[in-house]
């Protein structure tokens, strides 16, 4: 795949087989149903602490992940459940972690915002805005030193483009020509504040790219194939020594920022317009239009429901962590001795 600075008008998706396309659909549905279950469990008061749901943005993690290879690195934010799912982390442990159970991905010690699955290259979910961008550069640099060919993909929100770390990271990545892809998921809002009201430019990531010698790349973040195409080009570029890419993917979160935020600060017309651009039903229609049997997609929906139900059972079956968990893994020997 060759890199194009204007992937929107020239999406390199010819290589997607029907099976690939159906898999993109499946991954988005998995992410959607998983997040809906998180929300239900939250309403049942089973998710203690906060959660930030990804509903509406699924095409981005899905499309980007499809363009990555096994062994590539992923850095995500607190809105990152789906990013782990698409990298292959099973649902059960993630859901159990939401519930704070000892069978959770982090043994109940991490919670929704701090998921890590190093075995699948997910080198952390970060809840300090901007923190992961500079850290991701380090991982990318390590891969470059060792000439492993691994690419690092770093996700972040539109809000993060206004913190210093974003700008530091862009400059570092360019001067060292790092094998990294930065993906700004522009869902139009930071928490409650519209990004355009606090940002100097219209496109918070793309319009800054030029300052670091990068091309402005904007993609429809609700079009999974467009995301895939753009990401594939960027990943290819990174893997072949072409250096970093900054992608801005335009999208919208259907719900509020976190927990029970009803998102009332958003104008209704705006919400409706974006709901009409929901990536999943739209892709479903596209696939059906290309001749994919509706029942095949129904089957995916049903299989996913089953997967989510099973994950829920698994998560609920976990015990609550013992308070000894507080005392583990502060030091490299696994203990937390010395100064309690």
């Amino acid at each position, binding site marked *: 795949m060759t890199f194009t600075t204007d992937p929107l008008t020239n999406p390199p998706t010819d290589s997607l087989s029907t099976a690939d396309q159906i898999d993109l659909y499946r991954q988005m549905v998995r992410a959607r149903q998983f997040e809906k279950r998180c929300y239900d469990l939250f309403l049942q008061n089973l998710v203690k602490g*906060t959660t930030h749901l990804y509903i509406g943005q699924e095409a981005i993690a899905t499309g980007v992940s499809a363009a990555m290879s096994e062994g590539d690195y992923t850095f995500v934010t607190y809105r990152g459940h789906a990013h782990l799912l698409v990298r292959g982390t099973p649902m059960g442990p993630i859901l159990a972690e939401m519930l704070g159970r000892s069978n959770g991905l982090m043994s109940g010690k991490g919670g929704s915002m701090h998921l890590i699955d190093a075995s699948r290259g997910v080198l952390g979910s970060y809840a*300090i805005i901007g923190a992961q961008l500079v850290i991701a550069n380090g991982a990318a640099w390590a891969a470059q030193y060792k000439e492993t060919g691994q690419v690092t993909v770093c996700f972040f929100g539109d809000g993060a483009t206004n913190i210093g770390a974003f700008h530091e990271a862009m400059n570092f990545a360019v001067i060292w020509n790092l094998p990294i892809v930065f993906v700004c998921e522009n869902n139009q809002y930071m*928490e409650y504040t519209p990004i355009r009201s606090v940002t100097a430019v219209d496109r918070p990531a793309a319009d800054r790219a030029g300052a670091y010698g990068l091309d402005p790349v904007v993609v429809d973040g609700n079009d999974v194939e467009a995301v895939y195409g753009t990401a594939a080009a960027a990943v290819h570029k990174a893997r072949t020594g072409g250096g970093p890419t900054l992608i801005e993917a335009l999208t919208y979160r259907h719900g509020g920022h976190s927990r029970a935020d009803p998102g009332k600060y958003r104008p209704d017309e705006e919400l409706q317009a974006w709901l009409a651009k929901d990536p999943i039903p739209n892709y479903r229609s596209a696939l059906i239009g290309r001749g994919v049997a509706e029942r095949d997609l129904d089957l995916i929906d049903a299989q996913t429901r089953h997967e989510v139900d099973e994950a829920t059972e698994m998560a609920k079956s976990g015990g609550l962590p013992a308070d000894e968990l507080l005392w583990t893994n502060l030091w490299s020997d696994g203990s937390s001795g010395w100064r309690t």
Partner: protein
Amino acid sequence: MTTLTLAKAMNLGLRKAMEDDPKVLIMGEDIGKLGGVFRVTDGLQKDFGEDRVIDTPLAESGIIGTAIGLAIRGYRPVCEIQFDGFVFPAADQIITQLAKMPLRSLGKLKLPVVVRIPCGGGIGAVEHHSESPEAYFTHTAGLRVVACSNPVDAYTMIQQAVRSDDPVIFFEPKRRYWDKAEVDTSSAPDTWHPFDTGRVVRQGADLTMLAYGPMVKTALEAANAAAEEGRSIEVVDLRSLNPVDMPLVTESVRKTGRCVIVHEAPVYSGLGGELAARITEQCFYNLEAPVLRVGGFSTPYPPSRLEEHYLPDLDRVLDAVDRAFGY
């Protein structure tokens, strides 16, 4: 007198400060239209306008830096840091500039900046959202550091903080935001408890318990429980953490002969260590027992299912009381 939650008392205090002085500005993330995640600035932008209640970009270092610039040209900015853990991106500006500029300019530049930080745990959040970072700031010369524990102090101390010509780091106990008390919003500033003094919130004879912010309530509960066993505990709400009201503290400890210090922050290198050292230096011959400390553990703040184990509770405080009486 009106019954107010701590959050509402903060809100009214800020409102009063803005009415009293047109140079007072408020800035932070989501504080204007939304009124802040804890609604402490609720309605202020509507009434004072977008020029005085400013929704900022997501950039803590930039927020504090801008506030410093405004302050050296005569404004009195009040910055909200959304959660304790997000003060660290701002730590650079706070520690390297805010704390030092007045001295660096030989007093020619004053920095009447208030940095409000909702702090502490107990609301089911995790790390970054439940921390007690006060010792980083009490360690930094040039910053006034205060913590309110109740609605009355919230109302008065925020106004005193705004009037202070020194920079103030203002800690708000987030899990007490919904606690209520009677507040006299017509009281005159000269009747308020002086800004940099502590307060005895419960009289007692046998042991002094020092607390601040969210732990004052816990300390009072512990004192009540201990009273049932015939132990008379005096509880001091420190309120000001730098400077600390040592005269008040030493007077109390000399009277009681025992001292337990309670804070949510980890004990190791926490404010309690400094207090214990000073009390030992100044009250050595009056002490019946070593000064004991109760605090968080030296681990990162845990997620919600574990926080009740982490946070100092009645049991841990009373255990320290027992130990103090055991000497």
